[in-house]
């Protein structure tokens, strides 16, 4: 059974001509316990599709369903803070906070945990390879790979069903890329998550269960 369903989704920029779509009539279903890669050339709308799925943008035509509920009818802030974890290529962590504080803040916003947040945050960071000493460092004092691990830990902090990752390994070396991929695979298989990764990397595409390729101006 699909957790996320795209139904004839179309998107064009607000200032574009009425027939100038980034993509048109995309239909697809994503399931739990699986990893997906969205591939495509630059400008094909990979990141835009991710934004639509995460509720950061709204589709022009068509619908997106999360657990059979149309995103158009949902509180998107709440949807993002409870059901969708987002990991960016540029990490997008709050640089004035420590790794631990970034994770706890995310928990606070989602209101998932009321007690033992600190212990849970340490646990999450530990699970992605960040020890206590590093967890208490400001994120700018961590390497790129470590920052991405913190971003993954943050996205897991409220136990979402779907993890969206936009070029998560784009800034990382091959070895770190594999480490991150292993974390995602483990999350899908052991924690029953749906992992959707936007990527250019063939290595990433080879390591996921399904590849969804976007072509220019269409599916």
């Amino acid at each position, binding site marked *: 059974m699909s957790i996320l369903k795209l139904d004839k989704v179309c998107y064009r920029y607000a200032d574009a001509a009425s027939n100038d779509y980034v993509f048109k009539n995309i239909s697809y279903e994503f399931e739990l316990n699986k990893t997906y890669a969205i591939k495509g050339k630059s400008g094909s709308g990979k990141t835009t599709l991710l934004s639509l799925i*995460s509720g950061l943008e709204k589709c022009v035509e068509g619908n997106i369903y999360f657990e059979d509920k149309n995103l158009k009818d949902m509180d998107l*802030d709440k949807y993002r*803070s409870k059901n969708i974890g987002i990991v960016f290529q*540029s990490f*997008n962590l*709050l640089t004035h906070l420590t790794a631990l*504080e970034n994770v706890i*803040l995310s928990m606070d*916003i989602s209101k998932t945990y009321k007690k033992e947040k600190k212990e849970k945050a340490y646990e999450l960071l530990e699970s992605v390879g960040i020890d206590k000493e590093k967890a208490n460092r400001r994120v700018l004092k961590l390497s790129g790979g470590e920052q991405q691990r913190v971003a993954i830990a943050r996205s897991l902090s409220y136990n979402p069903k779907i993890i969206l990752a936009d070029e998560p390994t784009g800034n990382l070396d091959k070895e770190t890329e594999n480490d991150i991929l292993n974390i995602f695979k483990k999350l899908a298989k052991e924690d029953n998550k749906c992992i959707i990764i936007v990527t250019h990397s063939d290595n990433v595409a080879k390591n996921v269960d399904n590849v969804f390729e976007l072509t220019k101006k269409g599916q």
Partner: protein
Amino acid sequence: MYILKNAYLAIIRNKGRNILIGIIIVIIACACSVTLAIRSSAKNLISSYEDKYDIQATLEVSRENLMKDFNPSSENKEQGRKNMVEQFNNIESLTIENIENYSNSDYLKGYYYTNSINVNSSTLTKATSEITNTEDNRKRPDNMQMPDNISQADFTLTGYSSYDAMNDFITGSYTVSEGSISNDFSANNCVINSELATLNNIKVGDTITMTNPDDESKTYNLVVTGIFTQNSTDIEDRMDMFSKSANTIITNANFINNIVKNDSSVNYNITPTFLIKDKDSIEKFEAELKEKGLSEYLALRTNLDEVEGATSSISNLSTFATTFLIVTFSIGAVILFVINMINVRERKYEIGVLRTIGMKKGALTIQFIIELLIITIIGLLIGSLIGALISVPTANMLLKNEIESSQANIQNVNKNFGGKMFDGNEQGRPDMQNRNGINGIVNVEQIDSIKAVVDYKVLLKLFGIGVLLTLISSIASMISIQRFSPLTILKERS
């Protein structure tokens, strides 16, 4: 709760930016604090002046009402004039009962009065340039002639109900040169003019005997406690041998009231002075007097113009301070608004991240307002502390002349009364128990207390200004947070 924690972390982890905002708030708070302190001082001064210069009112003949029916072009002009005089003569004299009735009013904070009777003496020689001439009304104009029902006499016995009523001594027209004015306002004490004392070889401690002009068997004994000198002269007596007050014997009003009570045939004059609570009470008190039966030919006359004139310069200072406060506030608001706008633009990325991970726009706006509020409160505390240090010498510099003149004034008045004014004895002031100082004279301590200019009221106002400034300058962040698209922000960042 997490909003507060996040706001706190954002403040302490971005010290440079927040210190800059803090410095600007400190400067604004400092300027506002000084201005508010000056306003407060000016207000206190005005209130002090209002105590110093009571709104006094007395009753006088309403010539306007007397003449309103008189038509000079009428054929019956002479009859009209006679009617007018008749109306004047029919005005009933005020009595102590009238005064007590009128003064029983919520619109007054006190009253005092002066009464007088004519007396003779078989032992004293009247002070006049023509020793044999007993008629002292030679120079009076027609309208000043003694009424028929008042006996001609050599001396005037004038009584005052309290120190406050003794305006000639307060203003320095009269000065006690020997002895003092007794503060026992129920005893048979008196002070006499130095000229009369010299003429009759009277010393402080002597007893003088006065008589009823209509019945010389009725005598009134008075102990002389002081001798006064008249310092100023009227146009009328500049070329006279003796001053106008030479034959005036000054005692207390109770002494005269007792004479009148025991002898109803004695004619006496009574002049009340009402101390009106405030400006707004004047008309209400006047209406109340009419209700209580005051003749339509008597009117209330106040010294409101003089009182307002005395406070006008301070009012101007207060207005200037208010204008300065508005200018400071406006400039401060604009600067803070601009800085906050720059601040929000600088923190666009942070806004984008927080919005992406699901923080609501409202929560984010509240966090930004809390951050600014925390910085503002710290800035206000530091600013008001510095302001307090600056405003005290500033306000006191403005008050310096006032304090000095008040101190000099008190010393002078004390001297005029023979040094008995401020010995802590409140006797003889039954109607003035709750007042500070005497008719125009305020205690030095009262002026000194204005030194504490940055008080809780100023701090409360500053806090209000701070909250208002925070809200105004937060408009920038509120608008930006509503407008920013998190995706666009993060794309720009990438």
